């Protein structure tokens, strides 16, 4: 039986859908409703690269985690490209919040446990102010507001476990700030 998972990938500001389907060793990917293609992928050259064949052509794609939550830095053919990726649930959550990922949204960097919320919805925060504490790998990490603004949503509760890319605190940036 195929296990399917849908992702939303932002490339140069355009959002694309990708469905990753797996069955045993086999993996197929469909991009933007195009027919699914067998991925025939394997990490090469140091483990953070994927080789994908489209028909007969081979594309070597190097990936590493980028700065903000969900960002993935990509190099293809010597050209650097920054992308954002999120799973379907998160994409929908963000859509319903009406907020673009990365702007005022603080996302989990690594899997962990929310140990303390330092702000509540409606509160004004300044850029650099600590807003949430996440424990991961036995270390407590204070995450700070990337922008000054108003906290409009905290989709997690104290004690919740979170995964990389999960939105933690959504801040509406101050106009002009």
């Amino acid at each position, binding site marked *: 039986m195929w296990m399917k998972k849908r992702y939303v990938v932002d490339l140069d500001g355009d959002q694309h859908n990708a469905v990753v389907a797996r069955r045993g060793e086999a993996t197929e990917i469909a991009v933007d409703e195009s027919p699914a293609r067998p991925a025939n992928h394997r990490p090469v050259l140091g483990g953070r690269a994927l080789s994908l064949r489209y028909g007969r052509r081979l*594309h070597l794609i190097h990936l590493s*985690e980028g700065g903000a939550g969900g960002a993935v830095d990509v190099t293809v053919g010597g050209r650097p490209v920054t992308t954002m990726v999120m799973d379907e649930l998160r994409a929908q959550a963000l859509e319903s919040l009406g907020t673009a990922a990365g702007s005022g949204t603080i996302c989990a960097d690594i899997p962990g446990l929310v140990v303390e919320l330092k702000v509540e919805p409606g509160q004004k925060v300044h850029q650099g102010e600590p807003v949430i504490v996440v424990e991961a790998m036995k270390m407590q990490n204070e995450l700070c507001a990337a922008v000054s603004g108003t906290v409009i949503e905290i989709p997690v509760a104290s004690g919740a476990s979170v995964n*990389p890319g999960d939105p933690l605190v959504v801040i509406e940036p101050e106009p002009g700030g």
Partner: protein
Amino acid sequence: MAQKFSKVLVANRGEIAVRIIQGLREMGIASVAVHSDVDRTALHVLMADEAVAIGPAPAAESYLVGERVIEAAKTTGAEAIHPGYGFLSENGPFSRAVEEAGLVFIGPKAETMEVMGDKLSARRRMRAAGVPVVPGTDEAVRDPEVATEIADGIGYPVLLKASAGGGGKGMRIVREAGEMAGALRRTMGEAGASFGDDSIFVEKYVENPKHIEVQVLGDGKGEVIHVFERECSVQRRHQKVIEESPSPSLTPALRERICDAAVQTAKAVDYRGAGTVEFILAPDGEFYFLEMNTRLQVEHPVTEMVTGTDLVRAMVLVAQGDGLCYRQEDLVQRGWSLEFRLYAEDPGKGFTPSIGRIESMTVPLGPGVRLDTGIYEGFDVPIHYDPMLAKLVVWGEDRDQAIARGKRVLREFVLHGPVHNLPFHLWALDQPAFLDGSYTTHFVEEAFDPADWLPALTDEERQAIIAAVALYESERRSGDSTPESTDASVGNWRLNALRAMTGNR
């Protein structure tokens, strides 16, 4: 008086310190690194046999403090100091202090550096030695009327140049007599403020020049040889970014003349060690002495690639008193070499420097490839120093093969972290003026459009990227059990752990 060194201090950082340490190790000589506080975990420190901290991050309080460097050499028992390039490499008083401390300075005599460090005194010395210099004055000019008279004599446009200037600073083009008075006043003001010396001289401005330089080696006792030319006309902000050897602009006859002129230049100052004589080549085939760099040059690897020499070793041997290790008649140029300087800078934004952690790096290997590097995965590029990270050097049997190889390795090279200029090099290798060798020092300003230079992704590449990113995300989340994805997850955990521990983000 041959004295074999057993330990040498390297008074530099980054890729050049690493290059020198590697050369010393091959000669069986122990190395001592010096470093500032922020460079505690820099590659040259990790590679050297010993390391000495010499001060805080700003170069003026660490790498430029001669006394601390000399003290570090004495404390560790090093017999000699190799200065690399930049920092203390062309500082006459420093090299004198090194010798007064009973140590050997691996480079030319202090007097040579002082003559060549002052453009006017270098001009006078070269004219006396019969080396062609750009038509102009040999004396400082203060009076606009005198300057105008001189300019009328040599013909416009002319260049006003600060005698103590360098690196493209303290220069101004004057295209007609009416501009002279204002231009002279401003250039003198800038030179006084930047170099503490407002001596200005006038020379003919050569339009559309090429930058050709010749590597020389001298034993300090009158014997000088050349190791052929390099062309360094691909420049941005008056700094070189791509260099090649041989030069595509020289005929065999011109090559012989320009290399002879370089030997003549070095002989005139009884040159000791490795040095570079820079010339400008005018479109009519005339060439003129520009300046002499009395040190190892950034782009020395292209010379090593086409001649099979080791210039660091040659410098050390001369400093030990062993004399020159090559004979002129044994040196030939074989094949072609290109060097691409890898800078942490954004070509699309005026080549402004960038900083950050090297998150991921994949170095291309294969035939004819050399990488001189000062970075590694996890290294934080500091803001205090030159943003050059590494030099990617290729060799091919001819220029076409070297270019093809350059494209191959630039496409295989992956660097995530700071914004960098690898895509700029790929751009350059597609430009007609580079491919046919006609490029001049104005190449980048003429051909590079910061708004339109990165080739667009094809639809297929876009699809492949989207698929790869989704796949990456799914493996990073699922932690499933195929061996490959286990490896990938381990990699992510490691990266995340480092990030958490250092409190970065």
